[in-house]
């Protein structure tokens, strides 16, 4: 065995490209599940992350929804945080300096009231030099407006275009699973200038306390995340990967490396670990290490070799009638 072969076997190349960013490995964090990085400093080494995606940052501070904000459900959880955050100026002043100490691309998640609002925050973050990429959160199910944009290709394009005009940073459109057909929406985001697409945000759901006969969440509904939604997320990532050419950041129920590999095989260039961090705060590292182990065990030298590598299924096109037969 040559020295090069030994090295390759020992350490597969995990790096991937998302827009202008080179990630040292394909593992990033789900916005809203990793705070602003500092909270987990004792447990997670930001220098070992592919990128960090921070909690949503809005133009003005938001107090969020009243409690209860989170309930557990079978295999998952519902959240209705309501985008509580200190606003963009607070982010720039209080949160960004910590993150900038690390060699880790920062993705800032940006919701907005309308295209102008999205663009204003994007512009401010760009000018201040406190983000390496902007993830447009056009898909938050827990606040007004949030959801509407990602349910319509035209509205999606409006938000993306508005932001594209004001930033050269890598622009990521975060899509919603709560739609009839995600493909035209993904296409619209790409055509409007998104450098990448992330999905999925949470699915709308609810839970009722039968003793008190009221909704468990003060907000009524919340967003479902966690292992329960993984099959749905995986299918949407596959669909979108068949539709767009820009890279995809896949997420939804990734708890371990094996889940992450499923997303990569389905066509995601990177993955985000969300709810898993609550259960296992070091999941981000375990997922990255596990992907490396999978590659080594299966004779791959680069993570890029498995992206979209799932063998195409014999999925019949929906317009061809099924064969029928009298039995």
């Amino acid at each position: 065995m040559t020295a090069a072969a030994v090295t390759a076997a020992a350490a597969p190349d995990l790096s991937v490209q998302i827009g202008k960013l080179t990630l040292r490995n394909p593992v990033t964090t789900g916005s809203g599940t990793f705070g602003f990085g500092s909270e987990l400093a004792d447990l997670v080494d930001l220098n070992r992350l592919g990128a960090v995606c921070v909690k949503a940052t809005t133009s003005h501070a938001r107090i969020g929804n009243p409690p209860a904000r989170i309930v557990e459900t079978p295999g998952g959880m519902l959240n209705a945080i309501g985008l509580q955050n200190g606003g963009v100026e607070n982010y720039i002043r209080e949160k960004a300096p910590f993150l900038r100490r690390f060699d880790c691309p920062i993705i800032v998640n940006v919701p907005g009231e309308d295209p102008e609002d999205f663009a204003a925050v994007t512009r401010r973050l760009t000018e201040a030099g406190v983000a390496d990429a902007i993830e447009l959160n056009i898909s938050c199910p827990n606040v007004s407006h949030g959801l509407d944009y990602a349910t319509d290709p035209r509205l999606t394009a409006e938000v993306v275009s508005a932001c594209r005009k004001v930033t050269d940073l890598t622009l990521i459109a975060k899509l919603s699973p709560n739609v009839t057909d995600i493909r035209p929406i993904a296409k619209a985001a790409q055509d409007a200038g998104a450098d990448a697409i992330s999905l999925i945000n949470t699915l709308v759901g609810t839970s009722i306390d039968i003793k008190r006969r009221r909704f468990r969440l003060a907000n009524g509904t919340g967003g479902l995340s966690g292992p329960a939604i993984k099959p749905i997320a995986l299918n949407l990532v596959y669909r979108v990967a068949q539709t767009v050419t820009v890279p995809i950041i896949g997420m939804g129920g990734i708890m371990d490396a094996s889940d992450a590999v499923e997303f990569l095989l389905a066509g995601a260039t990177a993955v985000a670990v969300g709810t898993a961090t609550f259960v296992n705060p070091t999941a981000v590292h375990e997922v990255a290490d596990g992907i490396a182990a999978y590659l080594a065990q299966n004779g791959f030298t680069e993570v890029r070799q498995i992206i979209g590598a799932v063998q195409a299924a014999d999925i019949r096109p929906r317009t061809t009638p099924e064969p029928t037969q009298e039995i």
Partner: protein
Amino acid sequence: MIRKFLAPVIANMPLAAPGHRVLTFLAPALVADARPGQFVAVAADTGVQVLRRPFSVFTADPATGEASILFSVHGPTSQALAAMRPGDALDLVGPLGGRVFSPDSRPGVRHIFVGGGYGVPPLVFLAKTIHAADPHALMDFVDGARSKEFLVGTDGLEEIGVTLWLCTDDGSCGHHGRVTGVLPDLLGDRSRPAHIYTCGPTPMMQAVAEMAAAFDVPCQVSMEVFMPCGLGVCMGCAVHRTDGTYARGCVDGPVFDGREVVWQ
């Protein structure tokens, strides 16, 4: 420093109170860092639960490196804890909790602990910590429960000079009634400053905090809200503050100033 680790279980002792247990485990790093009011987030292999569950640090013994939690069996996680045996591995993250009980340092202050149910463990830890720093500290512990057999966790406190005030809803032991029934006497003694530290069911803490305010005595409350992550990242543990904002129960608390909290 917060760590994630598998702690070997040393002992799992049932208490006299039905369904209550103390689980002792080896965790020197936790023992070194944990302060009264902090907690650990436990993951038990329940299958049905996705999230960890918080349990207050009850004891932390630097001599042995052993820590413990005191719990009662409610649901899947506490059931799984009840079934653990010495040598099993306890999956935990901790110590968690950003703002902890802060002992009043005024000379001669009367420390009044008011606990109920699983509010007792952190207060016991606090009492022992105060005693270790000042063996002459004046301490009163008001412990409330439904009835006699549910009064737990205060063993050994009298030995370190704590005066116990037991209260039961049914009068089966001590004062017949709520903890707020004995507080006026303690707070009425104006000869020295007093300070209340309380942890327990929210209605109890609200009553205690309101009484403290009426007597103009400082009161620290440890809020028991559902804590999905315990790490400050999920924003799920909102505590409504009088300034209209929501604090995170886990890292902005769990201990708050009683006057800071909007009680529902």
